[in-house]
C-alpha cells in the first residue's frame, strides 16, 4: 500500500509565529485519516500546505509522489484537480445555484457536453441527497445542506483525495450523522483517500482508519482509533476525553495572577 500524502519534518511559520516544527505524517492510499488537535493549532494550515496554497519553511510535502512546494504553477494546478477540499463554510459560490456550483468544476476542467454534465451533477447530488434542492441558491440552504452541496461539488471531478476541513463543526446531531455516513460511504464506494481535520473526536474516530493528534507544533500521538482511545499519555487523554485543564492549559499564559491583580492597586 503506497502513501498518497507524505509530510516529512515540515516546519512552517506565519510571519514570526511558528506553527509547525517538525511535523511528519502519512496518508495511505484509499484510507481515511483523521487529524485532530485543539483549536488554533493550524489544522487548516495543514490542508493548505498539502494543497500547495502555502509553502513550508522547510521539510518535504509529497502528494501522489510529487513534491508539492517545488511544483511550478501549471503542474500544481494539474495536481490540484486530483485533490479536492471541503471548506469549513462550504464555500459555495453565492451567485450560482446548487446545480451550477456542482457543475462548475466540470465546466471548467472538461469539455463534456451539457447533457452529460447534467447527468453527472444529478448523480453527485443524488449521492448527497440534494437532488431536489438543485435549483436553490446557497443562501437558501441550511448549514448542513450547504456542506453536503459543497461535498457534491468536491466529488464532481472524481478526485483521488478529499480534504475535509472541520466537516462536523456547528452541525446538529442529525446532519452530523449524515455527513459521517457520507464520508464513510464515499470513501468505500469511490476508493477515495480522505483527510479529515476536526476536533469532533467521537464522530471522526468512528470512520477513520488511522488518526493523528497534533499539539505543540508537531504530532504528539498517532495510531488506530482504538489504540488511541486507550493511550495513557496526558495530552491524548486530555484531548480525547475533553478535560478542561492539562498539558493544554486552561489559562492563556500571562504574568502571575497575583502580580496582574496588584498592578491595578498602584
Amino acid at each position: 500500500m503506497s502513501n498518497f500524502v507524505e509530510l516529512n519534518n515540515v516546519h512552517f511559520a506565519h510571519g514570526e509565529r511558528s506553527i509547525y516544527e517538525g511535523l511528519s505524517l502519512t496518508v495511505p492510499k484509499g484510507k481515511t485519516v483523521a487529524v485532530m488537535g485543539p483549536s488554533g493549532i493550524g489544522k487548516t494550515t495543514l490542508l493548505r500546505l498539502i494543497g500547495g496554497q502555502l509553502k513550508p519553511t522547510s521539510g518535504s510535502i509529497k502528494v501522489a509522489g510529487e513534491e508539492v512546494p517545488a511544483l511550478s504553477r501549471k503542474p500544481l494546478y494539474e495536481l490540484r484537480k486530483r485533490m479536492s477540499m471541503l471548506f469549513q463554510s462550504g464555500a459555495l459560490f453565492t451567485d450560482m445555484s446548487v446545480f451550477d456550483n456542482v457543475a462548475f468544476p466540470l465546466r471548467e476542467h472538461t469539455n463534456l457536453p451539457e447533457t452529460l454534465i447534467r447527468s453527472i451533477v444529478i448523480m453527485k447530488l443524488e449521492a448527497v441527497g440534494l437532488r431536489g434542492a438543485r435549483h436553490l441558491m446557497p443562501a437558501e440552504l441550511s448549514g448542513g445542506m450547504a456542506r453536503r452541496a459543497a461535498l457534491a461539488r468536491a466529488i464532481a471531478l472524481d478526485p483521488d483525495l478529499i480534504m475535509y476541513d472541520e466537516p462536523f463543526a456547528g452541525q446538529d446531531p442529525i446532519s452530523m450523522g449524515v455527513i459521517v455516513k457520507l464520508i464513510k460511504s464515499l470513501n468505500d464506494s469511490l476508493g477515495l483517500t480522505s483527510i479529515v481535520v476536526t476536533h469532533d473526536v467521537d464522530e471522526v474516530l468512528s470512520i477513520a482508519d488511522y488518526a493523528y493528534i497534533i499539539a505543540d507544533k508537531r504530532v504528539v500521538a498517532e495510531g488506530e482509533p482504538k489504540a488511541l482511545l486507550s493511550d495513557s499519555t496526558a495530552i491524548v487523554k486530555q484531548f480525547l476525553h475533553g478535560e478542561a485543564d492539562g498539558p493544554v492549559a486552561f489559562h492563556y499564559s500571562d504574568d502571575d495572577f497575583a502580580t496582574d491583580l496588584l498592578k491595578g492597586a498602584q
Partner: protein
Amino acid sequence: MQENGYIHFNQAEGRDCLTLGGDWTVAHYIDLKKQLANLGDVPQSVTCNIESMKKLDTAGVQLLYRALGEHKLRQLPLTEQQHNLIDTVINACSNQEPPLPPKSNGFVKMLERIGIFSSNLYRNQRDLLGFMGATLQSAAQVIGRPSRWRVTAFVAQLEETGLNALPIVALLTFLVGAVVAFLGATVLSDFGASIYTINLVGFSFLREFAVLLTAIMLAGRTASAFTAQLGSMKANEEIDALRAQGLNPLELLVLPRVLAMLVSLPALTLVAMASGIGGGMVISALTLDISPALFLHIFERDTGINHFWVGMIKAPVFAFVIAIIGCNEGFKVSGSAQSVGEHTTSSVVQSIFMVILLDALFALFFMEINW
C-alpha cells in the same frame, strides 16, 4: 461575620504601638488605605499588636507592606499560611516595578507616525505593482486562447460598470458643464469676452473634466463594488475554493473586471464629454444668447482634435488603475465583515488619490509636449 478592619496608633508605657484589628481584606481596602494615610509616617521603633486581627488577604498584606516595610511585616506573629501569603505578595510587589511609560514627545510621535505611514505606503504600492504584474501575466497567458476567455463574466461586468453607470455620469457631467458655463459667463462678461465661454467649456471638458469626473465616479462606484464582491468571496472561502479546484482567480475574477473597465471608462468618458459640452451649450443659449448652431460652429473652429485625444488617452490608464486597486483590496480582505468594510474604504480612497495624481502627471507631460 464581617468586621471592619481598623488600625490605631497609641503610645503606651513610652513605646509606640500599632493596634491592628478586624478584617484586613479587600472589602475594606479603601477604608484601610484612608486610615493608613491619616496615620502618617510610622516611627521605625513601633511594635504591632495584631491579636484582634480576624482575617488577612493579599489586599491587606499589600497595604501593610506599603505601610510597614518588608522587615516589620515578616516579624509579625502570623500563622505559616499567612507568612506564605506575605512571601507571595512581597515577591509580586518587588519584581514588578511597572515600567514608566516612555515620555511622549509630540514631535517624535509625529515623526514615528509619518515613518509608519510612509513604510505602509511603500509596501502598499509594491504590493499593487506585484498584483498588476500578476494580472498582466495571466492576461498574457489567456490572450492566445479564446477558449479560456470569460466572455459571460466580461459582458456582465461591462453592463455593471458601463451601462448602469451611464445615467449618473451623463447627468453629473451635464450639470458640471452648466456650472462651468455659468462661471465663464459671469467672469468673462466683465471683459466683454463672454463668447469665450464656449472655448472654456470645450477645452476643460475635452482635456480634463470629462475623464476626471468619470474616473472619480467609477472609483467610487466600481472600485468599491469590486472590493466588496471579491472581499466577501474571500471571506466566504470562495476564492480558496477556486484555487483548490485548480483554477486561477486572477483569470476568472480579475481579468473580466479589468477588461470591462478598460472598455467602459473610455466609453463613458466620450459620453461625459458630449454631455458636459451639451450642458455648456444649454446655458450659453439661455443666458448668453449664443445659439447652439453658433456654439457648435465656434467650438469646431477653435478646438483642435488633440484636446480630445488628451482626454481619451488618460481614460484607459485610469480604468486600469481603478480596477486593479479595487480587485487588489478585495484580495486583501481577511475573513471578517469589518475587514471588507475597511478595504472597501481604502480602495475608494486609493483609487481617487491615484487618479488625481496621475492626472496631474499627465497635465505636466502634455504641457511639456505642447499639446
